[in-house]
């Protein structure tokens, strides 16, 4: 696969952390190869603790890999960059700033009038009109996550990295946030690399789903999701894709069924 035009290109990437005992190494990622095209929406799924967040943090420039290359927009990653904004699982919205100040955080270099226009635009886009002067502690978890997404978009990055951004939200809010994210992505034409442990979430969002194995994680399978948007969660295509991923991750869809009866060679259900 030619990667000169890739937005993100990861080549033979390895990552290990020093363990508790001296000299011991914990291998987290092994031989990761990955390409993301400009404008593509790619989800990475895998069992909890497999290293998918570590991979995203390396690509985002917050961690340094042990071996191999992470190339973003033609250049090796050396650190975080305002052209690529990270949306954090634990919500990185600044509690001492209002919604308006948070969304405008990356725009300080711009003249006031322009900044205000951009902030107003993205405040509307994420549905926070009327909350401009509110502080994060006055907002729900879902609204805070919208502030962070708007703050990322307002900085006009080429790529947005999202690390389980909806993980702490309730089921209904999560569904709504996904629908809004797809709508925004279609309007803004950003490249999105999205980490989740929720298979349904990945199939609802992504052009392609990358399945990672348990630790030390390798890329186990890449599943394209050639379904039109908006996606029908009852359609045979959706269900088939979802089941493919469930099966690849070694999970049964029938609660109570013995796990040993799933396809031989797949890893067992990860401990919860």
């Amino acid at each position: 696969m030619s990667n000169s035009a890739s937005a993100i290109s990861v080549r033979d990437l390895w990552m290990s952390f020093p363990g508790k005992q001296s000299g011991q190494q914990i291998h987290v990622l092994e031989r990761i190869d990955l390409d993301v095209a400009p404008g593509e929406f790619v989800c990475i799924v895998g069992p909890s603790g497999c290293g998918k967040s570590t991979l995203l943090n390396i690509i985002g420039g917050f961690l340094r890999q042990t071996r191999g290359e992470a190339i973003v927009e033609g250049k090796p990653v050396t650190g975080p960059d305002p052209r690529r904004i990270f949306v954090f699982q634990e919500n990185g919205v600044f509690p001492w700033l209002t919604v308006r100040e948070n969304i405008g955080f990356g725009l300080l270099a711009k003249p006031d009038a322009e900044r205000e226009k951009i902030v107003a635009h993205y405040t509307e886009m994420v549905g926070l009109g009327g909350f401009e002067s509110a502080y994060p502690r006055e907002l729900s978890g879902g609204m805070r996550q919208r502030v962070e997404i708007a703050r990322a978009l307002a900085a006009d990055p080429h790529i947005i990295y999202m690390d389980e951004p909806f993980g702490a939200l309730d089921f209904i809010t999560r569904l709504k946030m996904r629908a809004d994210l797809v709508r925004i992505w279609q309007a803004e034409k950003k490249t999105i690399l999205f980490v989740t442990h929720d298979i349904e979430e990945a199939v609802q969002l992504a052009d392609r789903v990358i399945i990672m194995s348990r630790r030390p994680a390798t890329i186990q399978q890449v599943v394209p999701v050639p379904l039109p948007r908006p996606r029908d969660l009852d359609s045979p295509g959706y269900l088939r894709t979802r089941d493919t991923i469930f099966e690849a991750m070694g999970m049964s869809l029938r609660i109570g069924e013995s796990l040993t009866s799933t396809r031989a060679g797949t890893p067992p259900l990860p401990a919860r």
Partner: protein
Amino acid sequence: MSGDRAWLKVALPVGVAVIFLLAWDAAVRVSASEVFPRPLEVARGIGELAQKGLLVKYIVASLFRVTWGFGLAVVVGVPFGLFLGWFSLAYVAFNPMLQIFRPISPIAWIPVAILWFGITDLAPIFLIFLASVFPIALSATSAVQNMQPVYLRAAQNFGLSRLQLFRRVIFPSCLPQIITGLRIALGIAWLVVVAAEMIAVNSGLGYLIIDARNAGKRYDLVVAGMVLIGIIGLLLDLLVRRLERFDEVRWGYASR
């Protein structure tokens, strides 16, 4: 129910104060003490101080020394504490020395303060500075060290310079804990001003207590000084607490 509660918040502490005063009065009467004053005598003592113009003069003198000593401690302690919190090597280098200085009571410094500054206002100001600078610096240090890493990473992502990072993220994220440190330090500063005035100067509430004792065993004025110190301490704490209500820092405190 919430209306009842607001009413109780005033009524309960006032009730406790009244019971305390009555018990105090009864205890003095039962013991038939010639020296220890009854509450009303203390109130009359405060009135007498006001009449002579000493009440305002002494309060202002004490507050003046606290303002200077505490103000200097803020100006030195906050930046130094932030510096130690941010540069871990500086923390490794300075922290043991700070921990050695910190447990030395300001009262132990009194002879040194007199030696260096004589019987001037500078001596108590120096003592108040010493008493409050350590809690202020240490609260700023731990605020930086305990900062949520996600704020730092988000800020780095937006490409802030070091100065912007400090001004827009590190300092505001540490502010709630710094204010808590200021509150503790101001309480200590007020404790120390009284001790400092007992030796070094000829005005202030601490001086009032020692002077009233030495010049004619005026225990009504001794206790008047104590009561005034307590009430002003309470007012100072309420004042600093108001800082915690600002929107920029309210997120940092558990809602109450």
